Each structure stands twice: as structure tokens, then as C-alpha cells.
């Protein structure tokens, strides 16, 4: 839930990157971090295991500029993708303003994508949200890999709501900022209506 601070004239919003294990959620954040001016970003925090798998969440605070005299601040979070971290995933979704679903394009990960998309819907509902009603975009990551599934197929399986979608190769940054912009835009547009 966004936090509007008239005292410091700031709008704070929370965006969560969701998706199956190893789909590239953390890589998205790392690329954003590496390409953002130091004065616009805070420290990136990764609560990860020794093998760099996300254990709880990654966190990246980002300032996107001013809108009508208010500084817009976005807090980007990733969830741990591995199936057994479900309890942690639910916690990260609390107070979310917008969601990015990062899908792994590799054909053998399609089942994991579907499972994670279902899991997102269930966990959102537990927090009182409907996927249809929150700003939501889909990213097809790892498009550069030779075993990537056809786009049409992914679209049919993973984007039934036909929300904005982006092809990406997060490791080289392709599609990363396009995805972020789309979800941030959705969140700000949503701010126009107070109280969903």
C-alpha cells in the first residue's frame, strides 16, 4: 500500500518481482542497480544463501523523479522463487502496489512458471488482493537461450489477463527497464484512485 508523505513530499510504493526459482528476479534488480545513478538509488540488500539463492528477499530503493512536486520512491522487492519458501513469499506480498511476474522462457521451466503464477494468485488473494485489480506486468526472461519456448505459447499459458508483457534477457539488461517502467506507470496511474 503506497505511503504518501506530505511532510517530506514523497510518494513511496512497493513493487514485487515474482516468479519461479532461477527465473532472473534478482538479476533484474541487479541490472537496475548497476545502471542507476548513485544519487537515485539506495543500497541493494540481498538476503541470500551461500550459493546466492534468495532466502528471504532482495530489496532495492529507487527514486524515479518528481511528479507534481512529490518525489516518487519505489521499493523493489523480489521473493524467493523456490517452492518451499512459500511462507516467506506471502510475507513479501504484504502491502504490495504492483507486481512483475518474471517467467523463465526455457521450455523445461514451463511447469515451474505455471506453478508460480498460480501461487502468486493464491498468495495475493490471501492478502486480500485480486491479480486483476493491481498493476501487473509479465516479463518473458531468457529469450536469448536456444531452448526458449515460442512466445505465442508462453503468452497463452502465462498471460491470460493480457497485461503488458516484455521479452527480456535480464543478464544483459534487455527488457529490464521497459518492464520496470510499465509497472511503475501502472502503480502511479492507480494512485489517481484513492482506496482500491
Amino acid at each position, binding site marked *: *500500500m*503506497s*505511503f*504518501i*508523505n*506530505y*511532510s*517530506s513530499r514523497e*510518494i*513511496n510504493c*512497493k513493487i514485487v518481482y515474482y516468479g519461479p526459482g532461477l527465473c532472473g528476479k534478482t538479476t533484474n534488480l541487479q541490472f537496475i542497480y548497476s545502471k542507476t545513478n548513485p544519487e537515485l538509488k*539506495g*543500497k541493494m*540488500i540481498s*538476503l541470500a544463501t551461500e550459493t546466492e539463492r534468495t532466502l*528471504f*528477499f532482495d*530489496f532495492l*530503493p529507487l527514486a*524515479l*523523479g*518528481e*511528479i*507534481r512536486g*512529490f518525489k*516518487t520512491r519505489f*521499493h523493489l522487492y523480489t521473493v524467493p522463487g523456490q517452492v518451499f519458501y512459500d*511462507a*516467506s513469499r*506471502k*510475507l*513479501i506480498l*504484504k*502491502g504490495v502496489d504492483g507486481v512483475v511476474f518474471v517467467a523463465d522462457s526455457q521450455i523445461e521451466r514451463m511447469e515451474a512458471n505455471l506453478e508460480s503464477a498460480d501461487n502468486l494468485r493464491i498468495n495475493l488473494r490471501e*492478502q*486480500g*488482493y485480486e491479480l486483476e485489480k493491481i498493476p501487473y506486468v509479465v516479463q518473458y526472461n531468457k529469450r536469448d537461450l536456444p531452448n526458449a519456448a515460442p512466445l505465442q505459447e508462453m503468452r497463452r499459458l502465462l498471460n491470460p489477463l493480457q497485461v503488458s508483457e516484455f521479452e527480456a534477457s535480464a543478464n544483459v539488461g534487455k527488457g529490464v527497464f521497459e518492464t520496470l*517502467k510499465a509497472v*511503475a*506507470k501502472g502503480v*502511479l*496511474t492507480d*494512485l*489517481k*484512485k*484513492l*482506496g*482500491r
Partner: protein
Amino acid sequence: MVDTQLVMYDEDYRKILGVLQRLARDANAKGIFLVDKNGQLVAETGEMRGIDSTSLASLTAGSVAATGGLAKIIGEEEFPIHFHQGQRDNLHITLVGGRVILVVVFDERSSLGLVRLRVKKAGAELAHVFEEMQKRAERAQASGAASPFAEITDDDIDNLFSE
């Protein structure tokens, strides 16, 4: 249940900061931070200027959320007070009004007992301020008042991204 949006005006902020500053003095604390349950920093005071309070806020919220999850597993509603003891500095974390988290950093100049005592009073005052803010937000929503950002145009949003 989805909470209503948190909207803090200058007068709210001044009230909140007043409570925090008094608490810092009364509890002999090094630093006080008030964090929204979703990880946004609401206010801070004390001598710990320059520390990364954005990260502190996000990690506090994560930690409280995780402990809340643990509480539910063992059949508790929540653990409203957390205490972390360090070699020099200690953290005292309390949930206030189910909505915000009060973080007190203190060292050997204070004690757990003193902090606990002072936090109790300050917590009640803060809960009252947030209740008022909540009521006002609900009234605004019920009366169908326009969002303060209703006038944002698509162009405003596009301009943010035109680099």
C-alpha cells in the same frame, strides 16, 4: 484485509516526531525509528544520523513479518515486542497499533527496563495518532473525496520516464 493507504500530513508528522523526540530523551536512546509495517520509514530521530535508515526500515519490516509468521505457526497472534542484544548496541522493536513498528536503538547509557517503560507510554501516544490518521483516511474514502493525486495526468507519468 487490505489496509487503507497511509497518508501523512505535516501536522501528523510533527506530532509523531514530537513523541519520538521525547522518547529518545526519556529512554536515553541512541536512535529511534518509526517504520510502516510494509517497510517504509515514517520518521526518525536521535544521534544516529547518516545510517542507512531506508535499509533499516525494510529489514525491520521483514523481520517483524517473519516473526509474525512464526507466531502464527505456534498459535500466537503476533509477538508484539522483539529485543536484540548486541555487544554495544541493542534493538528494541515494538508493534504499535498493528500498523507501525517502533525501533529503539540504545547502548549502555540506557537499560532494557527503562526503554521498555518509556516505549509503553510513547507507543500508546503513537497508536492514538495513527488511529486519528486512519479515521481521517476512512472518512475521506467514505465521502468519496478525490485522491490528492487525481490530477496526475498521463503526461506527468510519461515525463518521469523521459530520459
